């Protein structure tokens, strides 16, 4: 078997292992190690590589941002900021038709600004908003669908762990990617709100009525979210403004959210340990996948598959846009069964050289940023596409009276809104690149 055939074969093998419920990082590690053996004809190279690969991957300055952003999200979750955000959004928009669901989206966007993970955003906001939505007569599917979709704003609005990983994989500038994500992230929030407005117009019985809050209460509630604003401005502003590196920003964000939750008296010894253990789980999960991707990518590079497939795509003379649409479609499909981070680490090393070889009329840096944001959006859709959508599971497990089937149905309008937004951002790269061009 030729090296390229080995490279090609590795994908079905990995998928089979993954579908057999082998942890994704483990499957990538096993195939990477096995593949290197088949190509080099000896275990010596891969054994020698692992004398330093694990340490090099775990003790890496650029990846250190990942556990720090996770820790920041944990402290933000503890600090009661989700409740303050939802309260503020609800007093301003709750009385409108479907307003409480819109408020949940707004609060998710706000929480996404200080949390780099979708699941944490979905879980936290679900705890706060789900009981309120049910109390005011929102239909089960609308409530869970809204929060599952809102949770994706945790990744779409910077900071975003997936973008950090993409930046490292493709050697792009993290702060430019964060900046580029801002407009698409806001468009997502607006799109979800429009979706809710249309939904409740078609199904008026699906949303109840909330009393209009007096302005005194509104301003007071809004004033309650200042810590979120401060943390966001310091962290994201600090990265954009070059005051500190992303790792430093994440550490400052973690310290800031910890201090806020200390002042709220929501940080106790017990939940501090819980925050640490939860960070431990997510961190280890991500780093096992990154380590697996390191082993796999070394093997793929040796197989020459990335290079050859890039040359092949160019030689075929495909229309670049057709290739792009096919790739985005592939991500949507994979997203129905896989999680976002694994998808990125598994596919970007092959897909990125391929699309970079095509001409979309953009300079290489801008192309990489725009493509990264598009991929980010479609892999995030995967979090809410049935049957396997992690956000759907998390939210559904909190809503005791709503069946998974209702949640599946309730989220579909939001998936439709995601697809429309993807099409708009693909057709108009300038929307994504506007802030980057303005500020660099």
């Amino acid at each position: 078997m030729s090296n390229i055939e080995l490279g090609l074969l590795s994908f079905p093998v990995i998928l089979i292992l993954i579908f057999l419920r082998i942890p994704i990082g483990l499957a990538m590690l096993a195939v990477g190690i096995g593949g290197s053996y088949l190509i080099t004809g000896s275990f010596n190279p891969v054994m020698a590589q692992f004398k330093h690969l694990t340490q090099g991957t775990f003790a890496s300055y650029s990846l250190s941002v990942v556990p720090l952003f996770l820790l920041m999200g944990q402290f933000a979750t503890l600090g009661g900021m989700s409740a303050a955000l939802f309260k503020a959004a609800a007093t301003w928009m709750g009385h409108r038709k479907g307003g409480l669901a819109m408020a949940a989206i707004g609060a998710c966007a706000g929480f996404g600004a200080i949390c780099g993970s979708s699941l944490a955003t979905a879980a936290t906001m679900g705890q706060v908003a789900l009981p309120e939505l049910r109390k005011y007569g929102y239909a089960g599917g609308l409530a869970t669908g809204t929060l599952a979709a809102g949770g994706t704003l945790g990744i779409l609005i910077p900071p975003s762990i997936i973008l950090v990983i993409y930046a490292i994989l493709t050697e792009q500038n993290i702060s430019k990617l964060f900046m580029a994500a801002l407009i698409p992230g806001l468009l997502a929030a607006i799109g979800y709100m429009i979706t809710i407005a249309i939904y409740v117009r078609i199904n008026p019985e699906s949303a109840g009525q909330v009393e209009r809050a007096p302005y005194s209460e509104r301003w007071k509630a809004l004033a309650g979210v200042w810590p979120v604003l401060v943390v966001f401005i310091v962290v994201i502003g600090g990265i954009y403004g070059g005051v500190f590196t992303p790792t430093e920003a994440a550490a400052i964000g973690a310290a800031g959210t910890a201090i806020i939750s200390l002042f709220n008296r929501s940080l106790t010894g017990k939940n501090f340990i819980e925050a640490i253990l939860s960070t431990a789980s997510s961190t280890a999960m991500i780093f096992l996948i990154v380590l697996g991707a390191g082993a796999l990518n070394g093997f793929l590079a040796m197989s020459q598959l990335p290079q050859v497939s890039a040359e092949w795509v160019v030689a075929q003379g495909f229309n670049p846009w057709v290739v792009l649409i096919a790739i985005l479609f592939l991500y949507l499909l994979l997203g129905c069964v896989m999680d976002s981070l694994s998808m990125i680490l598994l596919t970007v090393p092959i897909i990125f050289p391929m699309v970079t070889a095509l001409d979309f009329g953009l300079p290489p840096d801008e192309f990489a940023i725009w493509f990264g944001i598009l991929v980010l959006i479609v892999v995030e859709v995967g979090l809410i596409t049935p049957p396997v959508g992690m956000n759907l599971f998390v939210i559904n497990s909190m809503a005791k009276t709503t069946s998974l089937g209702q949640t599946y149905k309730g989220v579909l309008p939001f998936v439709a809104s995601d697809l429309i937004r993807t099409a708009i951002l693909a057709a108009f790269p300038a929307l994504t690149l506007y802030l980057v061009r303005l500020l660099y």
Partner: protein
Amino acid sequence: MSLNPVERFVSGLARYVAIAGGLALVATVILIVLSVIGRALIPLGLGAITGDYELVEAGVGFAVFAFLPWAHLTRGHAVVSIFTDMAGPRFNAWLMVVCDALMLAVAVFITWRQALGAMDKFAYGETTLLLRMPLWWSYTAGLIGAVTFVLVAAYLLAVSLSDAATGRQPQAGQGAVH
């Protein structure tokens, strides 16, 4: 739920090692914050903490190793269970055995190679750039988590083996909620 002594020891160890990793992460946060403040106050005669990059790498490296056993013990790794959910409990029980055996193999492999890497760094006398901290220190610190990972993986394999052999429902979770 009553815990047998082995289970109590393994889960306690994984928990304490993960907490130690978490404290290292918190220490890293404090270090970075102090360094950034120091850098901002250079005009006042302060400065960044020398070697802050190296210390961050050492701290986070130790933490990630320390987190591995906890994630495995709590079945925290990302899995796709949609297809296996359609299969019967016996199939899944034995699949769990295969999974745990593979994880143990990888844990042993990583630990074994890391130990050799540490010996290399010791033999070559390599240090970090600014603080000249011997590199074998952080390799060895990583081994604390790695060895715990091996213990946890061995324990979980024993559990899933006995579950599969006796037809008991697995007590551990069905996979990650990630």
